[in-house]
């Protein structure tokens, strides 16, 4: 079937099989930041935005994204660098395989709730698994980023 969608602002028109998953479509279109960590919608590695909402691209048919706007980390490089630097300064990126999904969802959180409490951060990001860091370094990085933003009067 013929679909049309916008990947990181770029229009893509293509004939796809009915069961093509968004993750596979995105990877085939060069969005290699999108990772698969499980097949059961549990790990959060494949998080992308569809119409600016974070979703699991492993659990979505690309057919359902017809006419919609999809954003991956490739389309958010500046934000990823700004925020990611704070994760890097903790050494919390570790193996990095969960990073794209985690950073995507963190960006979604900053947009939805620019001043989250620790508990809100943990709740919002609970669907992003990480086996390396124990999460504490990620939390420190997020908090450091938020205070930096606050001190510099920036809006997340």
């Amino acid at each position, binding site marked *: 079937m013929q679909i049309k969608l916008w990947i990181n602002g770029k229009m893509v028109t293509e004939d796809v099989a009915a069961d093509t998953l968004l993750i596979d479509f995105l990877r085939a279109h060069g969005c*290699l930041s999108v990772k698969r960590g499980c097949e059961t919608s549990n790990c959060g590695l494949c998080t992308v935005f569809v119409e600016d909402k974070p979703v699991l691209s492993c659990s979505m048919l690309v057919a359902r994204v017809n006419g919609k706007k999809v954003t991956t980390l490739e389309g958010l490089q500046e934000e990823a660098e700004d925020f990611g630097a704070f994760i890097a300064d903790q050494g919390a990126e570790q*193996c990095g395989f969960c990073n794209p999904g985690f950073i995507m969802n963190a960006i979604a959180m900053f947009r939805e709730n620019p001043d989250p409490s620790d508990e809100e951060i943990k709740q919002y990001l609970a669907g992003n698994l990480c086996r390396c*860091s124990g999460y504490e370094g990620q939390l420190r990085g997020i908090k450091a980023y938020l205070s930096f933003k606050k001190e510099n009067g920036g809006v997340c």
Partner: protein
Amino acid sequence: MADFKVVNKPIRKKDAMALVTGKPVYTDDVTPTDCLVVKVLHSPYAHAMIKEIDVELAKKVPGIEAIFTYKDVPGKRFTMAGQTYPEPSPYDRLILDQRLRYVGDGVAIVAGETEKAVDKALKLIKVNYEVLEPVLDFRTAKDNKVLVHPEENWEALCPVGADNKRNLCATDTSEYGDVDRVMAECDVIVENTYHTKANQQAMMETFRTYTTLDPYGRLHVIGSTQIIFHVRRILANALDIPKSKIRVTKPRIGGGFGAKQTCVTEIFPAFVTWKTGKAAKLIYTREESQIASTPRHEMEIKVRVGAMKDGTIRAMDVYTLSNTGAYGEHGPTTVGLSGQKSISLYNNNLEAYRFGYDVVYTNVQSAGAYRGYGATQGIFAMESAINELASKLSMDPVKIREKNMVKEGQIMPSYHDEPNSSCALDRCMTRAKEMFDWDNKPLAVDLGNGKIRSIGVAMAMQSSGISGVDVGSATIKLNDEGFYALSIAAADMGTGCDTILAQMAAECLECDIDDIIVYGADSDSSPYDSGSYASSTTYVTGKAVERACLQLKEKMCKIGAEMLSCSVEDLVFQGKKISKADGSEEITLMDIATKSMCGNTEATQVTASHSSTVSPPPFMVGMVEIEVDKETGAVELLDYVAVVDCGTVINTNLARVQTEGGLAQGIGMALYEDVTYNSVGKIYENSFMQYKIPTRLDVGKMRVEFESSYERTGPFGAKSIGEIVINTPSPAIAHAIYNATGVWHRELPITPEKVVMGILKG
């Protein structure tokens, strides 16, 4: 401590920004998609013989390139364990075998142009199985009439006591002093049996390998592995081809934790490429990673501790039964740590110990290497037993440890008679007590709302590389303009060893971390390294880096001396320049680099190898505070204090995150991570939906500090950190749960159900 400039600093990882911005750096990102898709048909039975296998119909699926069965593979057995040759793990595998030994064992390999075609073909392979009785309970495996490996060409290369006709992968007993006599003299004996289960490493990137033929007709393997050189040997063994025909490289790795110290996927696409000449890729699903890999060895550990009324621990007797599953990967070696790393912790007053073990084959998923490598299991048992002893003696569990813990300078009979050359375990305990306020906290407080707050403690040790075995190497090269290239074969699997080793090089060469580029892990060009496991990289490879850099400095000074027409002794190396001691003349590093490329006969490149005759243990103390819900059994982690002695901390950020990450894995192991089987040997926890690892809501607050000793045999005084950090949560949490409920849980994981039922059943 020495005044370091680059070492002992929170340096950002060299690859950090690439990782946080999602750059395509992993195996599946950097290898072409235009290759054969490889999948494995897995056995549905725990024990069976293939009577007939018909692949003709499956081969007819359009796009199918090849299907291989046991009839097509070489008949020489090998092990997939990434260990130094001759491997202690028995040679008990074939790429595909007619006998299937666990649910998940390989039945056939299918290679085709698309995933859909391969999936279709998998369904069309017709197999007639003769289903055999399996050995599923590891307690009944030894001398069972059902043999997991009855084959005649089974072989143990090392004298580990293995006997395939008894389902024995290894057996041994060692003794020091007269255990029975000393035990008889003790006032109190605590004797209990502890049971730890298989746990999945559960790194986020599943197992995956890409293989292709290079322009010279050699097999080039690109994969997510911790052990490029061992992979080369294992594949040469498996395919029965010369090692010169194989090149192994690794890109970034999405986590390993020991899982990728075993060749889980490599053999399949390698065989396909070797047979077809075509590039091939196998990406294990999470399900395959859960059912057909090599998780932690399940162990049952019987501990006897003999002590005096004042808490003096005089004798220990440990027996471990370890379940290696269907194959023997890491079976003979993991088990040793269960005794060695637990008994040695209590060296101070110990007069006698006995440590015996059996490692048995069963028809469940093969076990392998997972962070902690047997020490984790042994320490859960030993630390629990010590807590039980303290409770029996009504002693403070911290005091009994302070009285008996191994001290710096002691010889450790249970640790190959090695001297405890650097040990700040006592300071770790003191600091942990302060941070935790241990002395002012009751073991348990009933909060009156159905909840009890309680505390627990445990200690741990590990090793730093395998003494006399592990080899670490580094090549350091001066380049144009004066930057350096550091070439290594240790595998940075997210741990940051590329950066840590670069920090060491920068410290030696008195330069900035950015002046060192790191190139890693290519079996054709990297200097030999055993690989990243056994907590060896910082300690062993780090020392090689240090040595290589010192030698390079000498060489550069030699060139400098020639250029300045003076003797080397007159020169001082100062990083960016080399000066005469009297300050009269100097030459820049750039000049030397330029000279090295023009009319030069002195190579500005040094390779150094290192191997250590000792393996100095890192130490740590963990203290936990939890809240137990008496009515639901829920255990909430409130606070975890960890104080670690890993010698000099090379990278303060990365060591801290290693610790936090290890604690989280340990918490999962303590409370819910489990591998269980149904009555016919099929794993229930075959996905992240069923195998739950901690989320960020499950881990509580962790506070990590370091109390460093200085290890003279290590680079800049460093020991290791990677593994020890997983060892304290299980016993500390079990202790806290006892303090809350009065029930000792001697089997992991301690689920809410076990907690409540324990209380209800008194």
